[in-house]
């Protein structure tokens, strides 16, 4: 697969394995290798490197479709809600986003919407200090919808440009927790009709096929607008996002590449496809 050899059945099996180990999933891997095999035959392409390049282009074209930048409100306050399963990297990502937006000259506010997990509020407050932005918080155990309400009111009153709302991790199959996040979403919408302008789903790049279920159920619940793919600095490739883009049309907007405040990048489809094969 790496050389300049001719393409045969073995070659396409190896190609499928590269895709599988990138967490692309069986059906997507089969679909992609079949597509490339047919194209190679019809375009009379016989050289391995050329077929690999074709596959990279197929993947890039799936991912680049409507590579959406962050959605900002036309005027006034932009509200962003961050959601996802436990430990994916939500709180850390908000810290990075707060620093990025502050660096762009925006007036940023954070809201400690995780009122459940031990030291979740302290964790976000540390990020607030690092980024130099205020953090709205209630007591541990408070209603997260109340925190969201308070945060939107406060951000509006203080003329903030962007409000970033943290939420507790939750597994997408827990009905009561999904009801809770729907309530948070409703409360935000009630206070500001156009909000939230971004609902970011944080996906850990090490996650396997369960990511599809996460994307489906979180989108059903709160209308996810984009994905943040975290921990891409590890060895996992995050290939699940290809199937997610194909099936749900959800774009990856941002990528987490480390634990420091500056370790956040815009998603680049071409680079992603390149790394998939490295």
């Amino acid at each position, binding site marked *: 697969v790496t050389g300049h050899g001719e393409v045969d059945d073995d070659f396409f099996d190896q190609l499928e394995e590269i895709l599988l*180990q990138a967490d692309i999933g069986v059906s997507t891997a089969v679909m992609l290798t079949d597509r490339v095999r047919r194209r190679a035959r019809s375009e009379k392409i016989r050289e391995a490197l050329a077929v690999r390049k074709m596959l990279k282009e197929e993947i890039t074209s799936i991912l680049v479709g409507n590579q959406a930048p962050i959605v900002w409100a036309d005027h006034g306050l932009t509200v962003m809600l961050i959601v996802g399963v436990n430990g994916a990297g939500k709180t850390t990502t908000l810290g990075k986003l707060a620093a990025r937006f502050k660096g762009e000259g925006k007036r940023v506010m954070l809201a400690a919407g995780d009122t459940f997990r031990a*030291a979740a509020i302290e*964790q976000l407050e540390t990020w607030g200090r690092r980024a130099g932005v205020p953090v709205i918080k209630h007591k541990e155990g408070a209603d997260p919808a109340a925190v969201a309400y308070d945060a939107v009111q406060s951000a509006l009153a203080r003329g903030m440009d962007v409000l970033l709302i943290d939420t507790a991790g939750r597994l997408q199959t827990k009905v009561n927790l999904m009801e809770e996040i729907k309530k948070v979403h409703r409360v935000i919408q009630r206070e500001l009709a156009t909000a939230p302008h971004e609902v970011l789903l944080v996906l850990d790049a*090490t996650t396997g*096929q369960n*990511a599809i279920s996460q994307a489906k159920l979180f989108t059903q619940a709160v209308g996810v607008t984009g994905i943040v793919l975290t921990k891409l600095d590890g060895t996992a490739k995050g290939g699940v996002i290809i199937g997610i883009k194909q099936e749900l049309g959800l774009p990856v907007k941002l990528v987490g590449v480390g634990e420091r405040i500056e370790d956040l990048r815009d998603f680049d489809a071409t680079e992603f496809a390149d790394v998939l094969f490295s």
Partner: protein
Amino acid sequence: GLAERLQQTFQRLRGKGKLTEADVAEAMREVRVALLEADVNFKVVKDFVARVKERAVGQEVLASLTPGQQVIKIVHEELTNLMGGSNAKLKIGSKPPTVVMMVGLQGAGKTTTTGKLAGLLKKQGRRPLLVAADIYRPAAIRQLQIVGEKLGIPVFAMGDQHKPLDIVKGAMEHGRQHGNDYILIDTAGRLHINSEMMQELVDIKGFAQPQEVLLVVDAMTGQDAVNVAEQFHQSLGLDGVILTKLDGDTRGGAALSVRAVTGCPIKFVGTGEKLDALEPFYPDRMASRILG
């Protein structure tokens, strides 16, 4: 699920007469797809399916009236055997304290699980000490302290301005003085490819001489599970695995991958966010779950 798919495959194949080895090979494709969809690593799947095929080409399947069911039975048995017997016990050292070290990737559930384990030991009449050795993650020490408070278990901490190795040294001394028979070390999440951070674990292990080094793995981990488990085992040496977040709907194929590549037993599973949500690992239940 796999049962239905196998039944359809064999119905179609039997229509052509007696079953042959070639027919079984075709059925193995269905098994392969099912395991890949369950996130079992593709190399582990290859080896596993080869094993199953060896048994499946015998009379057990070929002469059966319900070959699909026979194949499922073989797959389930092989999965269960591979993942080993139920082994939900922590080792205990020849003289106290017994040291347990919790390691793994970022966000896997180490801090929560360390608390759960301490809670379990306390219920068993032990006197555990929790050690806050994560100096990197914001409020990590506070998180473990709050967990300790909720469980009524002491937490040894020196703040985040001391090296983790020094914190562990202090904790061992403290534990000895206070008669703690178990010392549970919560470490920072880290990448298996970060050699500095892996060396930190090697140094802590070298000093503390733990009876148990437990790899905490998120049950929804995909193909990367083998890379992580292999590297942690090679660099550090593991005694066991704890699989977390099994209260979700992930099939959990990572369990098979981790077991296959390290040979280590999965000792416990995390089944929730509350501090009592820790259960023994049952390989036959995991096998059913992986097969969907």
